């Protein structure tokens, strides 16, 4: 126990110790936190759906919860069921074998719901494109509010995407 406490003290608070290049990140996360407080009573819940990615985007989504980005600290939580979710974070080109599962996940998410397509594949189908096995971009299968490009998009880009989705929903221009 002593060793754990010592290591925690030595590590310090990484979230505040973001290095210089991440000044923009700090500003964005502040705006995001304010939006979550205002629009979602302080708690935005996200259900991640991998619809066929190479698993690169999943690495960055997992990184969102490391102490540097500390997404949970902003009141944003990844939940286990679409029934608990405000927002779907969808990665990958949608494989035809995941098409039904993605549609059902979308239907199971309560209104009003937001969809953020994550990564080049989610935006355009990416390098996998459309084929006998791939439906291409997420927008081909369910309505998408915001698309975040990148291969994979950095945690910062994903945070911006989530913020944009919330702002769109606030402006009442979500495309549905």
């Amino acid at each position: 126990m002593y060793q754990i406490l010592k290591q925690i003290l030595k590590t310090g608070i990484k979230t505040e110790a973001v290095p210089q290049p991440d000044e923009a990140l700090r500003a964005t996360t502040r705006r995001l936190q304010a939006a979550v407080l205002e629009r979602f009573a302080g708690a935005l819940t996200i259900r991640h759906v991998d619809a066929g990615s190479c698993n690169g985007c999943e690495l960055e989504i997992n990184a969102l919860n490391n102490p540097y980005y500390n997404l949970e600290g902003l009141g944003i939580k990844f939940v286990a069921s679409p029934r608990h979710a405000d927002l779907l974070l969808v990665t990958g080109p949608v494989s035809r074998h995941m098409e039904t599962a993605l549609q059902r996940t979308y239907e199971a998410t309560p209104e009003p719901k937001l969809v953020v397509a994550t990564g080049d594949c989610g935006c355009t189908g990416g390098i996998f494109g459309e084929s006998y096995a791939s439906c291409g971009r997420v927008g081909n299968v369910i309505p998408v509010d915001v698309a975040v490009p990148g291969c994979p998009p950095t945690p910062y880009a994903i945070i911006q995407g989530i913020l944009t989705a919330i702002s769109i929903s606030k402006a009442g221009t979500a495309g549905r």
Partner: protein
Amino acid sequence: MRIEGHDFDLSALPGAVPALRATVDAAQWRTACCRIAGDGGRLVALWGSDGSETGNSLAVHAAYATPSGLMLITLPVSAGRYPDISDVFPAAIRMQRAIADLSGMAAAGAADDRQWLRHAAWSAGEYPLRKNFSARHPPAVPGTGGAAPQNAAAGMDAYPFVQVGGDGVHEIPVGPVHAGTIEPGHFRFSIIGERVLRLEARLGYKHKGIEKRFEQMDLIQGARLAGRVSGDSTVAYAWAYAMAVESAAAVTPPPRALWLRALLLERERIANHFGDLGFLGNDAGLAFGLAQFSCLKEDVLRLNETLFGHRYLMDVVVPGGVARDLGADGVNAVRAECAVLERAVATLRSVYDEHPGLQDRFIACGRVAPELAAQLGLIGFAGRASGLAWDLRVEYPCVPYGELDVNMVTHRNGDVAARVTVRFEEIAESLRLIRMILERMPLGAYAAQVPAVAAGALGTGWVEGWRGEVFIALEAGQDNRIRRLHPHDPSWQNWPLLEHAVLGNIVPDFPLINKSFNLSYSGHDL
């Protein structure tokens, strides 16, 4: 040339790994397989091809690891059937089922002939990897499932899972959409109380036509796709792909490029082990572990971004060499990072080792006994945690591993604790290797031109990624294009072992056991 014990001629393939190839008949397909198994060899990969464009027949190919190196055996298939080898190498079962789905060749006499990668995107009787099957087929119609031949849901539900009967037995279906940020797949647990009587996995949800996609690309474009077969192993795949292209073109990259590739591969190994060690702590209730390890991982990723322009090192390894050199500042930065990481990992290892709650969850959980691992062909770090001394960096060391004298890490317990220990020790070893690479890396060019590859040229790549051995077989086509490419993930071998590892454990331990292997869905589903 002849090899003792085989009654056919083998010819050598150029390349970084020793490789021999031969074309055999149906009887020799079996005898060669048995002979290789008898000599302690293992099955690396199994795939099909369609030679109709060049006037050849369908063929099935096997890659084996033998004491003398890689052995590639091709069997031309005329009547759509070839002899089953899954009784000799059980790892062949799912590979043979995938060949039946994709290339339309059946293993005659195989006990399990159910579909594997095919759900409902195409129908039985259609074979995506046949040359007469259009990649655009069926025409993509947004939102309609692309005129799939049958109701997609019906296609999924019709899969004949093995049923477990008896009083008090019930099933838990899990997935394809899981509760965490992980890839999709379906697990069918048959349980009594909380104990797992049987687990059957149904994969293939992520099948996105990668092999067919390769055939629309030239050898240069293919490098990008190879790096995205399984994103967490992008360096291993990109290197294996580059190795295959260089083998087909019979060129050798400059030495500095090879040393830099090894540096990248070891960085990838460290980053992935960090991530998984964090999640393993978290899954056993020690959130401290996740926080600590995910910080260390983030530090590695940020230095990757600074030095190589990509957090996960995608597209840094290219055919002919690497895309970026490492300057003197970079060398110093990596060296300084090694010192920091070594200290942090030593501290965290003693925390993990001495934490009674953690060890209680890890020890004896998800055990794969060495005998079972050997029989079923477990590979990679999971194999090494079950006593199997298989590591390409030691067995068939390519440049620069021959000079680095890699210390292979093995354990015999085969439980989650052993896989955790192997990961800790492999991190320490990778840090040592990185220091040696920085010290001894030769100067000079970091990339060479790759000449155009002759149509029909073959190439292989074989790299010990963090998860296990990544294999790529390449056949070049006209105009420097790809005629056929098979990328093989170590997860093919290891997924079936997961089903054995959970037997007798309780359902809540499944996430822990699963994470201790952390297998790739994308690399397997293709």
